[in-house]
């Protein structure tokens, strides 16, 4: 009981000293809970939407996806004949059946040719206004669309783009461009997270989306009273046979949910991973805090031991304090997590993704997990300091405490740390020299882990050495103040090491990823320079196909020497070894592709793969299936017949662009795939006539003005785009790593703040004998900078090592060029010095404000 009481009193008395540890726990727990609440809320929102929008039973074409999404490579949705509706009506238990037409392969533009698609990346859906949708939406203003000239818009899209009744919009499909005026605006009764929806009347929808009447994409079936969805499905299948896809509402919703889930899971686990890193960094902070509290309390603990407390009791009293800290931090963290989730939802709102706080979902497991994580991590982190507290001898009560003895980093630590680092280094070397990417990545992971732990373990020793070097280089300039800062940083190497190591973790990841990212850009650029023989690339940035009208517009552009079409076809391959490989992709292109992109081959020449009834395979595939030049591969196209194609080229796997592609000519493919099933082009390569590059580029741009969904890029633009994309990805990761770095910076603040408290008397003495406030502040700032720079040096060094190893390993996959982004690395290094200055602001201010006399009199 007394133990608990001392713990409570200590906790309350030192709450200031624990504040930053609590913040670290809070941040990590908040991130975990925020992630969970946010993803759960997304789930709820979409679940409600899927539940609300699905009809009891839905019939669609066999080739349609399970989610009912109606895209295909032909640019037109897969359809079923109108007669199906009549048949379904004849089935038992059907109350009503209605044919609808929907497509997501549509670009909608306003009168100024600006896209009306959601910037969130949500789908743009155009379809027929029907009974099922009328159930979930209400017309807020105007009327439902009637006739070819009218279109109805969903309220969110109308809001976003200020669309009013009477505004003209254009619907660009594979069929052509259709113009209509807004007749009405319809609002969802549930939250529509981000789709832009446009309704036409059924006939107009058929003509605009499919190009002919008498076909539907789906038939929505509702059950008569007392008929379950499953029963209804059976009845419908009974009349239709198995030529069509028939799904219950639950099946459609589940399929949608599954697709969403896989996306949300990636996001969830990525974010939880970053929260994990933050927790890891937080552990250093907590260990430091408790070590310092125990050191400061040595006499007190000695007294407790002298009057009869057992080791266990002392040990437990520290752990109870940690428990209180963990609980306080976690409870606040859970609350902050919900706040964070709401903030994220608001942020998503800025990006055209609507999420309603009505759907805010906090599962009971979220706070439970947050609390558990926060408390367990805190108590575990405090375990070592608590053990040390238990070891304090009763004699400590009698000794003059003075300054805490500097903890010498032991020889055991040195040996262990160096062994780990050496083993890690060896693993990294093994990864860099691995013959196969798969074994290499295992070595890489092991190497990263071992070197990280090794660095953390030898951190205190490195702190001693590196701080001395830094002192010699950096601090000498600042004279005695610099020297005192150096000595202070060296005073407790374990503390400096742990504080620096916390910063090291985040910065190592930053350095590693920046090296890999910039090597990716450099390698891709290098390969583009070496292989691309064309001037311009036309593509749709969301991966949609290019309509025939747009292809024609490109081909009609003056100043072009040639245009190469490039499309993807799904196919099942039967190889000479007798195996059948489903779900492969054939990249069909015009023979000029071989000139446009000079693909490296290990056998044959790519140009030969474009001869009639020929193809190419990639190196790995050829090895796996024993394919040689001249082998015959049976290719069964998804929407066509089976072709027996002769392999005339084997492409190298050392590629960044189009790795693992199998090529054939469009002419070859066209023999086996009917024209109306032939996919539209994915890409167009255009090459200007000699000397007309500039004019052709302008001409292409204006030719594509009518089709705002397509972008034309020359090589410079394309490289920039590649760079931007990787840059964006890296920035996102840096943003998430910022959490770990913030916690590490809090750690620096924490160490300094507690050191200032610990050195109160010293500070008083120095002030008494004439150290000015400014000098005192500078001394603390310099100590802070030294710690931060130490962490940065370690982190950047380690991270660049990881990054370079990863590049060597990925060289097997075409990442040939190692590019170290020195501006980023130096930026981070200099930034870390500023972070050190920033971290010292408050501790330095507080130290300078101390009353000299009181400071000297402090025990």
């Amino acid at each position: 009981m007394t133990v608990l009481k001392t713990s409570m009193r200590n906790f309350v008395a030192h709450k200031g000293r624990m504040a930053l540890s609590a913040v670290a726990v809070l941040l990590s727990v908040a991130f975990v809970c925020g992630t969970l609440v946010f993803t759960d809320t997304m789930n709820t929102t979409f679940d409600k939407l899927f539940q609300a929008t699905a009809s009891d039973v839905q019939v669609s074409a066999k080739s349609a996806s399970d989610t009912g999404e109606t895209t295909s490579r032909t640019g037109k949705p897969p359809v079923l004949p109108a007669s199906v509706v009549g048949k379904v009506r004849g089935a038992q238990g059907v109350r009503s059946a209605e044919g609808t037409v929907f497509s997501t392969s549509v670009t909608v533009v306003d009168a100024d040719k600006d896209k009306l698609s959601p910037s969130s990346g949500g789908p743009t859906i155009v379809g027929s206004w029907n009974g099922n949708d009328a159930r979930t939406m209400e017309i807020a203003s105007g009327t439902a669309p009637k006739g070819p000239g009218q279109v109805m818009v969903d309220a969110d899209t109308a809001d976003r783009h200020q669309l009013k009744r009477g505004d003209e919009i254009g619907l660009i499909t594979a069929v052509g461009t259709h113009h209509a005026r807004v007749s009405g605006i319809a609002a969802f009764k549930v939250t529509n997270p981000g789709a832009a929806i446009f309704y036409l009347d059924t006939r107009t929808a058929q003509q605009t989306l499919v190009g002919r009447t008498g076909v539907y994409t789906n038939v929505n079936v509702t059950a008569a009273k007392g008929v379950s969805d499953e029963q209804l499905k059976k009845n419908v299948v009974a009349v239709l046979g198995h030529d069509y896809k028939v799904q219950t509402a639950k099946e459609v919703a589940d399929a949608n949910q599954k697709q969403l889930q896989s996306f949300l899971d990636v996001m969830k686990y990525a974010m939880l991973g970053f929260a994990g890193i933050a927790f890891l960094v937080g552990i250093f902070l907590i260990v430091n805090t408790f070590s310092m509290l125990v050191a400061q309390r040595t006499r007190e603990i000695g007294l407790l031991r002298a009057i009869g407390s057992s080791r266990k009791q002392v040990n437990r009293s520290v752990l109870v304090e940690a428990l209180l800290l963990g609980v306080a931090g976690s409870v606040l963290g859970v609350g902050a997590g919900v706040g964070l989730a709401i903030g994220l939802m608001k942020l998503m709102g800025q990006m055209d993704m609507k999420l309603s706080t009505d759907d805010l979902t906090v599962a009971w497991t979220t706070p439970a997990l947050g609390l558990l994580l926060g408390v367990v991590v805190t108590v575990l982190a405090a375990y070592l300091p608590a053990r040390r507290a238990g070891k304090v001898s009763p004699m400590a009560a009698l000794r003059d405490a003075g300054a805490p003895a500097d903890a010498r980093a032991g020889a055991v630590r040195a040996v262990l740390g160096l062994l780990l680092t050496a083993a890690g280094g060896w693993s990294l070397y093994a990864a860099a020299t691995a013959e196969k990417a798969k074994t290499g990545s295992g070595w890489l992971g092991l190497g990263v882990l071992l070197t990280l732990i090794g660095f953390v373990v030898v951190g205190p020793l490195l702190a001693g050495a590196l701080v001395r070097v830094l002192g010699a280089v950096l601090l000498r300039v600042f004279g005695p103040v610099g020297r005192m800062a150096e000595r202070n940083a060296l005073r407790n190497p374990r503390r400096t090491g742990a504080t620096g190591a916390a910063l090291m973790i985040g910065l190592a990841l930053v350095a590693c990823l920046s090296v890999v990212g910039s090597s990716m850009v450099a390698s891709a650029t290098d390969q583009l320079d070496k292989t691309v023989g064309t001037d311009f690339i036309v593509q749709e940035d969301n991966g949609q196909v290019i309509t025939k009208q747009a292809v024609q517009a490109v081909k009609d552009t003056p100043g072009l020497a040639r245009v190469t079409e490039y499309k993807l076809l799904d196919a099942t391959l039967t190889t000479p070894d007798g195996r059948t490989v489903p779900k492969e992709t054939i990249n069909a292109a015009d023979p000029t592709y071989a000139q446009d992109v000079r693909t490296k081959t290990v056998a044959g020449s790519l140009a030969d793969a474009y001869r009639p009834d020929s193809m190419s395979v990639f190196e790995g595939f050829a090895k796996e299936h024993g394919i040689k030049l001249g082998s015959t591969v049976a290719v069964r196209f998804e929407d066509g017949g089976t072709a027996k194609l002769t392999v005339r080229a084997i492409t190298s796997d050392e590629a960044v662009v189009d790795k693992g592609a199998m090529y054939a000519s469009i002419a070859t493919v066209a023999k086996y795939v009917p024209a109306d099933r032939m996919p539209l082009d994915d890409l167009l390569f255009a090459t200007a006539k000699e000397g007309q590059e500039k004019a052709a580029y302008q001409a292409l741009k204006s030719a594509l003005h009518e089709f705002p969904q397509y972008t034309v890029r020359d090589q410079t633009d394309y490289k920039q785009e590649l760079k931007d994309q990787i840059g964006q990805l890296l920035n996102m990761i840096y943003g998430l790593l910022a959490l770990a770095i913030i916690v590490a910076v809090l750690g620096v603040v924490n160490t300094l703040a507690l050191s200032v408290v610990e050195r109160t008397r010293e500070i008083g003495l120095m002030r008494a004998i004439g150290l000015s406030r400014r000098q005192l502040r500078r001394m603390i700032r310099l100590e802070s900078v030294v710690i931060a720079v130490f962490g940065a040096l370690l982190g950047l060094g380690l991270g660049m090592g990881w990054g370079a190893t990863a590049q060597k390993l990925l060289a097997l996959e075409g990442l040939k060029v190692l590019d170290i982004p020195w501006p980023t690395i130096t930026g981070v290094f200099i930034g870390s010095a500023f972070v050190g200055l920033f971290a010292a602001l408050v501790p330095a201010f507080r130290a300078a404000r101390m009353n000299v006399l009181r400071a000297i009199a402090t025990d």
Partner: protein
Amino acid sequence: MTSAVMIPRHGGTGGRTAVAARARQVVKAYGSGETRVVALDSVDVDVARGRFTAIMGPSGSGKSTLMHCLAGLDTVTSGHIYLDDTEITGLKDKKLTQLRRDRIGFIFQAFNLLPTLNALENITLPMDIAGRKPDRAWLERVVETVGLTGRLKHRPTQLSGGQQQRVAVARALAARPEIIFGDEPTGNLDSRAGAEVLGFLRRSVDELGQTIVMVTHDPVAASYADRVLYLADGRIVDEMYQPTAEQVLDRMKDFDARGRTS
């Protein structure tokens, strides 16, 4: 009110320059109204240059407060304090810090040294902070005087309590301050080590002409001084020149008895 105004008699030299520090009508009070506590009650004092002055008095008499105020470590409620001709009351922290750094030396009862610096670095610290080069010859003489030659590279933790205080004395002397203030500098030492340190202080006055003000409650320590001031209830109530330990002790017993009968 009848404050015990002292008309300090001049020391050997006489004249204004004979006074290293002066306090005039210094009042130091804490709190206000009912809870007001007066630590110094209109104190006037002159500290003679080149002399060793001891301030004595029972606990709570205000002796430490007086020293802290004279040294510019504490502020006064009213009155004036001068260091030589400089008035230090009313100076801003920056000026006061400079003053302490350049013109004043300190020896505290305990925790005089920075644990991260060795003995020599501790000794030269005030000059380092000021960015001044120590005078080599003087430094050697001081180090020799306090008997620290050969221990200059030691860290404080490697030195005994007496040695640590000697380092503190050396630090105070090394910068050649106008005045050194000691706050029970031998309070934590055994009598032998204490006698050693006091001997050095005495020698520094006699041989180096240093001015020293020391707060103590130990009659033996006070007997090393040229002059002893007695404080009680925030006032200077008596003084004594060329004291011996016996005289000081008798005088204190006397005050004690008076304090009890009044």
